[in-house]
């Protein structure tokens, strides 16, 4: 690709570039309006004392909302819970997703059926699925709760509740992971596998020494997408526990402050902090691990 650095562009290239910018413009403008403005607005709100219950107290207070949030135990609890859910569920999804990707890719008989079945959870609305899990774990009526010892109510205890949240999350998004990984599998040439087996590699060695390194870009992209997504987890928790027993994520906290508490200042501060965390995750993935957007060359 021509980066145009230190090299004079010809008239034609410049015209082409201009046309490119014009063609991108509508999308860019829509993006700015629908995502850029709300972000700017949240940042502005986070710098104010603004509680809808006391509208007359509204004032610019600089960064003191940030001080409030960052010293609050509730926030940090939510933060660590979110991190735990993110790391554990993404790790499980990676392993399961890889297995499913292989199954989908290698299946000789019933390939279409397997792919369809694998994708079903991804096709179900998260909230609907979350209610399914909730009823399943409700003592007395749920089919999964029935498997547990008498008198246990997993969704009301912190540890089990988080485990169930992770389970619901994994069930829901593993297909997405598998799909991304399968695209990565497809770029590993079949002939390399043959070469490796003639060179003396076992199935496991072929996987770890040839397939995995070649799939690395796809794996990183899948991990990035899923990590960003998981960190913003909301709907599963909202339905399953609504954040009770210290199971709330950062998004749940922000929601409770914004919508429940009507505290626009604190809620917006939390939203901005979530955005910052997500941005840091993305930067770590892209600069630290060299994750490239799908389609761009290394």
């Amino acid at each position: 690709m021509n980066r145009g650095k230190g090299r004079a562009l010809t008239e034609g290239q410049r015209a082409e570039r201009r046309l490119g910018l014009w063609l991108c413009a509508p999308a860019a403008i829509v993006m700015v309006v629908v995502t850029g403005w709300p972000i700017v607005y949240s940042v502005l709100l986070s710098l104010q004392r603004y509680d809808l219950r006391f509208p007359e107290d509204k004032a610019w207070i600089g960064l003191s909302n940030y001080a409030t949030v960052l010293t609050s135990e509730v926030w940090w609890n939510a933060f660590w819970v979110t991190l735990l859910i993110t790391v554990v569920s993404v790790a499980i999804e990676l392993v399961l997703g890889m297995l499913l990707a292989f199954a989908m890719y290698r299946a000789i008989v019933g390939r279409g059926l397997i792919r369809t079945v694998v994708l079903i959870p991804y096709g179900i609305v998260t909230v609907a699925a979350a209610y399914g899990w909730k009823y399943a774990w409700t003592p007395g009526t749920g089919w999964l709760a029935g498997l547990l010892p008498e008198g246990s109510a997993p969704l009301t205890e912190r540890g089990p509740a988080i485990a169930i949240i992770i389970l619901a999350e994994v069930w829901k998004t593993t297909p997405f992971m598998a799909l991304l990984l399968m695209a990565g599998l497809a770029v590993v040439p079949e002939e390399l596998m043959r070469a490796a087996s003639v060179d003396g590699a076992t199935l496991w060695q072929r996987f770890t020494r040839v397939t995995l390194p070649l799939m690395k870009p796809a794996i990183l992209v899948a991990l990035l997408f899923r990590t960003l997504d998981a960190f913003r987890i909301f709907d599963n928790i909202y339905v399953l526990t609504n954040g009770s027993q210290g199971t709330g994520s950062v998004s749940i906290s922000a929601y409770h402050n914004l919508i429940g508490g009507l505290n626009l200042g604190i809620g917006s501060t939390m939203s901005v902090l979530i955005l910052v965390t997500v941005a840091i995750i993305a930067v770590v993935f892209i600069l630290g691990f060299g994750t490239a957007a799908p389609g761009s060359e290394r």
Partner: protein
Amino acid sequence: MAEIVLDHVTKRYADGTVAVDDFDVRIADHEFVILVGPSGCGKSTTLNMIAGLEDITEGELRVDGRRMNERAPRDRDMAMVFQSYALYPHMTVRENIAFPLKLAKMGRAEMEERVERAAGLLDLAPYLDRKPAALSGGQRQRVAMGRAIVRDPKAFLMDEPLSNLDAKLRVQMRTSISRLQKNLGTTTVYVTHDQTEAMTLGDRIVIMRAGLIQQIGPPQELYDHPRNLFVAGFIGSPSMNVLPARLEEGRLRTPIGDIPLRGRLRRAVEGPDVPRDVIAGIRPESFEDAALVHDADGGGTFTGTVDLLESMGPEKLAYFTLDTGAVRSEHLTEAGGEEEAGEGCQLVAQLDPKSGARRGQPVRLWYDTQAVHLFHPETGENLTER
């Protein structure tokens, strides 16, 4: 190093395609055997069965007398070179070459020494720390060779290893592969669809067609004594000329004149099942400009107008159109593929560069009547060789 025996091996794919049918060859230790044939004739399938990359449907594969059918590729100790080279893109040249050794858990010192030696043999030393993406086609090919020779395997299996190279490099690599194999003495099975490669490289050639072996033998034998029309058309460049011919009292009528039936020709047509209409084959090399032939005994002559003249340097190729229909045979379509689409029967003669033949001018040619082959029009069998 090993003896490889394919004992009546057959490959039937899941969809019922019989890719290789009753393949029966004994490849001696140190031997360099070429599998050659048109596209889709089952060469790669055969090689993959030897490597263990394809299951054997029927028959037995033995290496040094031991049955291999059920063994995984990694337990067969064979090295393979692929047409696409199949280098690992995430590894450097050094790591690529060392990969089989690493898998075999070889000690570091010996591994390094072996990689250096292989790199030296193949002039790869300056590139050891590069990734394959930063190499030229020829260098990649050599890395693939390096990965094969580094572990001293029982056999080399090569599937069209040179077909992605340009013509000049191919000739160069051909010689170095030949020299390498002679030096190492490793049993080699080499697949190609290029008859020149087949002729120049192998100790023996196995010619295949539609899964069936047509003939096995040293290059010269296949050239001199093709068992059938397919082999005759496949081996040799330019291809053997094929002409319609008719057996009459004591002679053979052909578009390039009558040929007396003597010696081997006489014996060839004596059989009971020989039809009157046969196919005559004569190689371009069997012609010469009559003006340059002094001892013209035992030959025929023919005068024709040169359509096209190609000067190749050490020889001239003169093309003629004979006023008779071209020979149509299923045994030819897949083989040479050189046959012009035109209706007329084409003839190519290879002449001495001193020949005065000129385009558009008539020239008198001499040909060696004893070099004529006669083929059965239906079965394609070479009547002069049975």
